[in-house]
């Protein structure tokens, strides 16, 4: 995750692309989506079309990116590993998309990004592990129903790994104050979405 030589327009285009994917208005429970390319790609598409997972991973990547290379490298491997472990457990469990879990993830991660919290390496590692286990479990429980199953889980984990690598390596080399502020503003948006979701979740009893 060394500093890439990507020039500014490329970076802005990459950010815009990530935002575009994040806001794709698609089904949240994408186990019903089939690519026709097999369960691995079905799982990958599940992740891309599920904003509750996509935005969470993006927020964590922004957080570790702000904290530096060592945090980014650690999260790059801990998050997918925990996601896989949680998913395997979830394959034998029950559950689905949890609005309150998503909301709390957004508020926590978004708040940490917005405040540019100076977390130690152990804290970001623990955060990555807990998020991976939680979201992985919910993914696994959803995939256990008729859908891509365990192979699909591998597709999801591959997508998680890729997004963390891309987003964190984008943020790590940012030094300009305004560029880091843009990342923090993105964090405040994620936290704001989470706060609204808490209201939705309580109102709907989700």
């Amino acid at each position, binding site marked *: 995750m060394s500093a890439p030589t990507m020039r500014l327009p490329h970076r802005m285009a990459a950010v815009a692309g990530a935002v575009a994917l994040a806001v794709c*208005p698609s089904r949240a429970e994408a186990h019903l989506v089939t690519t026709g390319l097999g369960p691995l790609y079905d799982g990958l598409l599940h992740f891309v079309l599920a904003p509750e997972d996509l935005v969470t991973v993006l927020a964590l990547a922004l957080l570790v990116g702000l904290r530096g290379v060592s945090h980014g490298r650690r999260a790059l491997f801990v998050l997918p590993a925990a996601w896989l472990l949680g998913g395997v457990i979830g394959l034998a469990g029950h559950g689905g998309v949890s609005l309150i879990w998503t909301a709390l993830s957004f508020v926590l991660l978004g*708040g940490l990004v917005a405040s540019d919290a100076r977390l130690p390496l152990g804290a970001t590692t623990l955060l990555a592990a807990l998020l991976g286990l939680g979201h992985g479990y919910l993914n696994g429980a959803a995939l256990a129903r008729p859908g891509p199953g365990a192979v699909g889980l591998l597709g999801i984990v591959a997508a998680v790994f890729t997004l963390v690598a891309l987003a964190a390596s984008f943020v790590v080399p940012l030094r300009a104050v305004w560029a880091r502020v843009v990342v923090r503003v993105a964090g405040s948006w994620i936290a704001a979405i989470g706060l609204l979701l*808490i209201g939705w979740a*309580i109102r709907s009893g989700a």
Partner: protein
Amino acid sequence: MKSRPARAWALGLLAVLLWAPLAHAHVQQGQAAGFFTGLGHPVSGLDHVLAMIAVGLWGAQLGAPAVWLLPVTFPMVMALGGMVGLLGVPLPGVEVGIATSAILLGLAVMSALRPPLAVAVALVGLFGIFHGHAHGTELPAGQSALLYSMGFVMATGCLHGVGIAVGLIHRWPWGQTVLRAAGAVVTLAGVFFMWRAVA
């Protein structure tokens, strides 16, 4: 990057965005409507639009760190107000509070007011509660909560961005005059909103 690859990127992103609505072909309905409804909600009322743009204008006038601290604060506090509204907790005088926000923010821009940063943030945060509460109580049932919230927050943030972008003309003398005039317009609009709220 040359301009041609940049255009290719832009076209690619545009294609992604245009492609997205095709994902309707799944079992559940209303997801895309949730996002776009959320995106459109903050711009559906002139009182909200003017206040949010005024926050950006004021931030640009104040310069760093207010220029980014105010837009970071407002969406989070507004979402907090939205959450309170969603939960059905009453907040008296919401419409009056919204009108007051337009009047005071307009006055701040018009007079290029430079209070201590904490005061500016507290003021913007207080107004955010009123705007958020109004939005929260108006949120339609049956929408996709996550996608709606994403669209809602993004639209709010973009309105601040518009305010900041316009406010960058503050660096020129003529721009400062234009900004003050814009503040006067927001104030007048706020007076109208107030009259409508109490009439």
